[in-house]
């Protein structure tokens, strides 16, 4: 009896084989995923109740990173009224950090929120980059290597905080522009980033990430009523090196409170685990099927040839 392997069964078998391996593998990946971040990683605790919106951090960042001179001076506070595409100011290729003003109805004074790269413990940009242009350093910074970047901009889509920006003025020499925690010039020598040093109010506190969490909790505990009982960034997207304290709920000061409490990596990890298996297992598996399916025909052919020779 001639057994024919149909096209449908062929693919079914392939998928079943892959799924079996995937299930076995996913246990391994889950066990491997217990990375809590580098123990001595540094961070910054941003206290929104202290910020007065002086923009010193923006000026310091601009000078430290050699970014272009802005259209308006850094002591021009009219920028807080700027709205582009229905949004407040955001980071772009000329600014790694910006401060925005939020008018809170219950408060008699506005609050200010500084945005920059939050330097995630498990960065989505890094996960999404297929040329490994991103690195999370043991000091806590998420740095970027423009030499290998191909300019696909997947990192810009992957980032839950919309931070990396593309230097459109040099599209043929692709370059992502984002805060690097002053890694090259300061952090790797144990120094605080330029913005922290410039802050007159110590709204930005630099230190070991673990110590900053203790410090943040102390501030919340010892000044009841002053803060919302939450450190934004302690758990968000699996933890970030930059964390925030606020006197009003975080969604009132522009924070995305719907980001997952686990790394973005976890949402795509199962799928990503299958990709290399498809590439390595499928060719061998299907080649085997093919050989099995065509084996009988070959034998028949050989027998026929033998008969012909005899005749």
């Amino acid at each position, binding site marked *: 009896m001639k057994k024919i392997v149909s096209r449908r069964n062929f693919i079914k078998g392939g998928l079943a084989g892959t799924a079996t391996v995937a299930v076995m593998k996913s246990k391994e990946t889950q066990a491997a995923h217990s990375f809590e971040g580098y123990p001595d990683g540094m961070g910054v605790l941003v206290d929104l109740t202290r910020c007065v919106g002086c923009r010193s951090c923006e*000026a310091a960042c601009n000078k430290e990173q050699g970014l272009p*001179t802005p259209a308006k001076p850094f002591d021009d506070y009219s920028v807080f009224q700027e709205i582009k595409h229905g949004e407040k100011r955001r980071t772009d290729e000329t600014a790694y950090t910006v401060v925005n003003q939020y008018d809170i109805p219950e408060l008699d004074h506005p609050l200010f929120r500084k945005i920059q790269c939050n330097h995630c413990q498990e960065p989505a940009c890094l996960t999404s980059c297929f040329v490994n242009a991103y690195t999370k350093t043991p000091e806590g910074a998420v740095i970027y290597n423009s030499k290998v970047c191909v300019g696909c901009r997947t990192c810009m889509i992957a980032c839950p905080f919309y931070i990396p920006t593309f230097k*459109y003025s040099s599209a043929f020499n692709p370059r992502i522009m984002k805060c690097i925690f002053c890694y090259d010039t300061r952090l790797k020598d*144990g120094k605080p980033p330029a913005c922290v040093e410039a802050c007159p109010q*110590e709204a930005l506190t630099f230190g070991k990430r673990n*110590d900053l969490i203790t*410090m943040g909790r102390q501030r919340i505990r010892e000044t009841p009523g002053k803060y919302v009982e939450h450190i934004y960034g302690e758990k968000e997207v699996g933890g970030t090196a930059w964390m925030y304290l606020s006197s009003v709920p975080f969604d009132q000061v522009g924070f995305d409170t719907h980001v997952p409490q686990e790394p973005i990596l976890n949402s795509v990890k199962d799928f990503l685990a299958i990709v290399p298996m498809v590439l390595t297992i499928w060719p061998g598996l299907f080649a085997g099927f093919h050989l099995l399916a065509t084996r009988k025909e070959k034998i028949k052919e050989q027998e026929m040839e033998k008969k012909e020779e005899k005749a």
Partner: protein
Amino acid sequence: MQTRKKIMQTALAIAFGGVLMVPTQIWSMEAEDAPESVIIDSLANLYTGVEFNHAMHVEYASCQECHHHTTGGAVVNPNCARCHSNSGEADEVTCTGCHEKDRFNKTYLRTLEAPELYHIDKPGLKGAYHLNCISCHETTSGPTGCQDCHTMTLAGEKMFDTGSHTPAKGHSAPGH
């Protein structure tokens, strides 16, 4: 001028001192022990230093509102009172005596890791000045703008791209 003011103050203090003296304050400093004015310029770089009129501020705030427990007065903040309700006058009462000039240097950060240490969140000198001054000025309608207290230096103008360093009109960042 300043001397005359001081004499007047001392005379007033002597006149009313006896009346105001409360037993718990016997070992604490009094306003007249303080300097008339303090030049705050140890960090001056982007802005000029500030001549802080101490004598004037004494009329607005009690010693411990700015000096915490160090002047020996009754501590108001319950967190401080847990340990410092009776600690008396400290050897050091100046801001620079306790608040680190270089708050984020490696060596200092390491000292904060001592497990028994309570003061893990002591602001640096620059933070201490501004947090103390501005928070009070906000509630008492004192000056709160940067240049209300200290004028920007040339280095500051360069940093902020302002004053003599303001970009020419029409000049904007490259790109887009």
